[in-house]
């Protein structure tokens, strides 16, 4: 009888210890989550995640910078010549091949996030060898479609999610 107790008890004992430890671990994990989640964008920040822009006053050839989610967005009213130039580029010359048509909703309007895909600087408009943008930080050169042509940046300027609400109004985000 002494032996049965000796073998039975450690098992029940172990079960209890494992159960307690497991419940405590679940509790610790559940407690950690709010402390991590609190650093995610809060409700007021999320509510601001779309911006409406009136584009009627942007003249042909002009670039306007608007702020969206704390970052600059370039809206470029391209001229006919610029559109032709951007469409004529052979894709095999591009480090990040993308046709111009995949980067615009209406050819005369180019909307890109104005953040260099290299390390986050703001490229300067109408500068560089391709008349697009030139990043002064490390010399990345973008063309009239915001595509990377030379320099250290790995990708084209990002196109944000946007929609034409009317001919003169776009909603970014």
């Amino acid at each position, binding site marked *: 009888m002494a032996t049965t107790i000796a073998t039975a008890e450690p098992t029940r*004992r172990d079960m*209890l*210890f494992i*159960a*307690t430890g497991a*419940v*405590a671990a679940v*509790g610790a994990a*559940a407690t950690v989550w709010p402390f991590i989640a609190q650093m995610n964008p809060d*409700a*007021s920040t999320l*509510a*601001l995640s779309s911006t409406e822009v009136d584009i009627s*006053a942007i003249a042909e050839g002009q670039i306007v910078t*608007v702020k969206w989610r704390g970052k600059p967005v370039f809206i470029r009213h391209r001229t006919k010549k610029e559109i032709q130039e951007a469409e004529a580029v052979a894709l095999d010359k591009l480090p990040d091949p993308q046709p111009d048509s995949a980067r615009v909703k209406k050819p005369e309007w180019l909307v890109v996030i104005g953040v260099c895909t290299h390390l986050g600087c703001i490229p300067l408009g109408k500068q560089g060898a391709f008349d697009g943008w030139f990043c002064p930080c490390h010399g990345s050169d973008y063309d009239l479609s915001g595509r990377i042509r030379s320099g250290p940046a790995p990708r084209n300027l990002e196109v944000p999610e946007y929609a034409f609400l009317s001919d003169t109004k776009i909603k970014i985000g």
Partner: protein
Amino acid sequence: MKLKLALFAAALTGAMGMGAPALAADAGHAEVHKQSWSFAGAFGHYDRGQLQRGFKVFREVCANCHSANLLAFRNLAEPGGPQFSEAQAKELAAQYKVKELSDKTGDVEERPARLSDRWPAPFANDIKAREAMGGSLPPDMSVLAKARTYHRPFPLFLIDALPGFSYQEHGVDYIVALLNGYKDEPPAGQKLDAGQSWNDIMPGNRIGMAKPLADGQVDYTDGTPATADQYAKDVAAFMMWLAEPKLEDRKRTGFRVVIFLAVLAGLLYATKRRIWAKIPH
């Protein structure tokens, strides 16, 4: 702790120039009563219909003078609140104008409000509000339901904290009582200044807000009686949500936390007993 006999008694006593015992006899009618609220207690939750009605009263009556600077239009569509649809909230927002500095002209211009905008205040600032209101400042309503209370005598104030009896709704009780506490005429011998009304609940009894609610003033479409008393309750409930928008989330999470801790404590106790089983202590 909430031993706040003082606040109203002191104010009333001071204003009326009487001793406390005399006051108790005279102002027996000026008591705030506990109401029945759907959101009271450990499992309480808001009544959506009530919040929507309360919002209507707020919008049509209160908001003419009171600001609610912490209320954003998006809040009206968020879970745990009146829960209008997002389309409804957007449509509502579009009916209001907010001021914004124009990128183009550099002037402050008006544009229709969006979901992310806050409820526009009726007055540009406190000075303008006072000027329009004959010297009184209508307080911002955002957290008003938590900024008001009334005295709960011993032992009620202790019972208010206890599981099963917990009661935190003193602010909304006070608001209902205040809205119902108007008298057409001050008691004999009491004088009111211009723009003042007599209110049994207001500390000092003189209130700058004219009686705001009257029967039939706001249309209810859901069959709820359109009485001043019902308006007061509905708008108070709305104000509670305005002050405590995460109340439902809080109570739901709290229930889980307490259950979890109880299970953990039980297991820990069993474990502790096992460990100490062979040690006399």
